[in-house]
């Protein structure tokens, strides 16, 4: 283990790894914001292609992000089902036409509704690869530096880095405490009933909280003793100088915004409407 590998950051020799955290963060925010605003299917499809192409270039292996992908897909499906259940006529409202596919009354499913939900799905599909690329190719400290650079106060940006620093410690505390409590007699294994197990789990929380509070006190003292919080600004060891590559990322992001805004004007709103 050479690096904190939470979120799967790894040193890979790709241009996306070498791009500064600030540039990637700005690019991510620009593209995903534009994509969230727009409901232009052509635009969203293009973003999806772009995201997948970037994903290929980032050389991230499937097994590294499989869990994240599955979680997001499950979430997306639940989201789409809920939209259908709660607002089955929203598509008709939005596009102003009614082309029934099947069902009747409240449960009439229209082409408009399916199209609307397809757009929602596209939003998930393009933004997930971008988020994975950002997290997997950016050193956590550089990410914090990037946050700070785009205007997040450094105390908040640093808290992100420090959380990553101590998560492995808290995980190992949790594991140790859980075993110790089982030895004391709290059954957490599958042998016990659900109620007994949840009672046992509560017993882990208290010692974990106390251990963590102890740790936090020491950490904050250690930080103050080395002048964290003294200056208004702070420099970052992991900060990278901007290069041509970063400028290109900025230019590319601006390009995406220009196209997105252009489509907003052409379409006369956020929607691309194939029904009229």
């Amino acid at each position: 283990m050479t690096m904190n590998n939470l979120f799967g950051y790894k040193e890979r020799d790709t241009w996306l790894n070498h791009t500064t955290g600030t540039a990637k963060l700005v690019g991510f925010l620009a593209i995903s914001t534009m994509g969230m605003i727009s409901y232009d299917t052509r635009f969203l499809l293009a973003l999806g292609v772009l995201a997948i192409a970037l994903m290929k270039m980032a050389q991230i292996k499937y097994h590294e992000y499989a869990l994240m992908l599955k979680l997001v897909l499950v979430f997306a499906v639940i989201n789409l089902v809920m939209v259908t259940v709660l607002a089955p006529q929203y598509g008709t409202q939005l596009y102003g036409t009614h082309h029934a596919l099947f069902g009747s009354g409240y449960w009439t499913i229209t082409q408009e509704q399916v199209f609307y939900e397809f757009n929602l799905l596209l939003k998930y599909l393009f933004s997930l690869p971008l988020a994975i690329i950002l997290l997997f190719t950016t050193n956590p400290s550089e990410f914090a530096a990037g946050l700070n650079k785009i205007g997040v106060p450094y105390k908040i940006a640093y808290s992100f880095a420090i959380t990553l620093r101590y998560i492995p410690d808290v995980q190992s505390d949790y594991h140790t405490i859980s075993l110790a409590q089982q030895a004391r007699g709290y059954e957490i294994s599958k042998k016990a009933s659900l109620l007994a197990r949840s009672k046992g789990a509560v017993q882990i929380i208290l010692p974990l909280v106390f251990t963590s509070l102890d740790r936090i006190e020491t950490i904050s003292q250690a930080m103050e003793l080395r002048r964290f919080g003294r200056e208004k600004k702070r420099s970052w060891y992991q900060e990278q100088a901007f290069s041509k590559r970063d400028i290109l990322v900025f230019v590319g992001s601006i390009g995406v915004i220009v196209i997105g805004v252009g489509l907003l004007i052409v379409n006369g709103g956020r929607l691309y409407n194939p029904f009229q």
Partner: protein
Amino acid sequence: MPAPIIDFQHVTFKYHAQAEPTLHDVSFQIYPGEKVLIAGASGSGKTTLLRLLNGLIPQAYAGDITGKLTLNGKNIVEQTLFDLSLQAGTVLQDSDAQFVGLTVAEDIAFALENDNQSVSHIKAEVSKWANRFGLGERLNLAPQALSGGQKQRTAMAGVLVDDGKLLLFDEPLASLDPAAGVVAMEMIDKLQTERDLTVVIIEHRIEEVLSAHVDRVIVMADGRIVANGTPTEMIQSGILPENGLDEPLYVKLLRRAHVDIASLANVADVKQVVVDENKAAIEQLKIPVKKGLHHTKKLVIENVDFSYDKKQRLFKQFSTVIHQGEVLGIVGKNGSGKTTLSHLLTGFLMPDSGDILLDGKSVLQQSIKERADNIGYVLQNPNHMITKATVFEEVASGLILRHVPTDEVEARTRAVLKLIDLDSMRHWPISALSFGQKKRLTIAAVLVLSPQILILDEPTAGQDATHTGELLDFLATINKQENTTIIIITHDMHLLANFVERALVVVDGQLLADTTPAELLADEKLVTAASLRTTSIYQLANRLGISNPEELNAAIVHGQV
């Protein structure tokens, strides 16, 4: 004489949260270039003194200060924590928690980042200091991948990048094994001479610190300074044991040989003290090393294989026998399998193959809970174990969970509480207990289940000589009365030398030796392999040309009354 760098005049300090002052009328000076040891038992006020020096008092801990205290001639109380940190660098006791960066490089850079210095300057400084501390190859490593010694060196580098002239160490040896402790003290020594630093070390492990040429020792007890002089004066006066501190082992030996320590020159340095004329008296103390005291097989470990991941096997065909009523020590450098072994015994981990037999019956099918009925395990950190609000509840909880009748719970809990001397405090909230008391409480909570075997992980960590003594008395009692087998995982030299009967040296999953502590601590090869060090008795015996030094070690082990 130059002006003192630290000057305390009649300083009294009371925490707001407490009724009585923690420091009473403390006066002392420390001069530039000195290396000073501030020693004292738990609760003597030495940590409070350190907090006054680095500014954590009054900024993190509020209280009332009277008297005059200056650093570099300026009033400490009127300066901010940040100003003080530029003059006095603090290396905290827990070098793991002090490690705030994600990597070695970022941790060393931390103070400079906070000063908003340019990145190129920071990189140059980090590389300079990392190389100076032998960390140049490890710049990109996370703290989880470092040894205790490396973390502490990172902490030192991270403090020294400020180029301050005063360095404060809070118990620098607490989280290190003895071998790493020796290296750390040598490093501090070297730094001090090269960079003309003033060093203040807070510690209760006197023996190790004295080996690093301390100029002066300040002894604290009950919030007062009870002695302030050279190490030789301290040993001569015999003031250390009176104040809950351990004397070096060779000094104990010399006392037992009725050497007149009060007038012995250089008595604080085992390499220089002249006691040739007492050689005969010392040799007379030798006693044969006792071994093979116990014969009933209690726990048998048979050909155990274990690996955390498939590629690397930690234990390969590991076998040993632990006898009933034995006090067994397991030693070895960190990460070599000591804790893994205890986790295999308690069922926290399962062996890949092989068997573990208790009284001839395999325990592998039992759950963690079932095994805990026979094999009690006390973790190193009491905070990992405590779940209840009061002392009584904590001890009783294991019995209640095993559906023991209420009146029996009461009787058994009270009996154990009496044994560990916490019965009068049974209604106390646990938050009011000291660290040492919490440690004893966790032992009680395990003992109440009447285990036949008790496994303790570093039981003396963070405890001073007085508390260690109490703990050992108590363990000796249950060992004798209940014939409980006691297994101790440790690298505490005093614990090994004074208490353990048999020692297993486990290195990289191999049983390197099965021996007595007396023999182990007189065997340079084994000691190096186990990251321990030889005792000062061994060093003295070597200088005097006394053969079989293990028999002198044994005099300390078994000569204890």
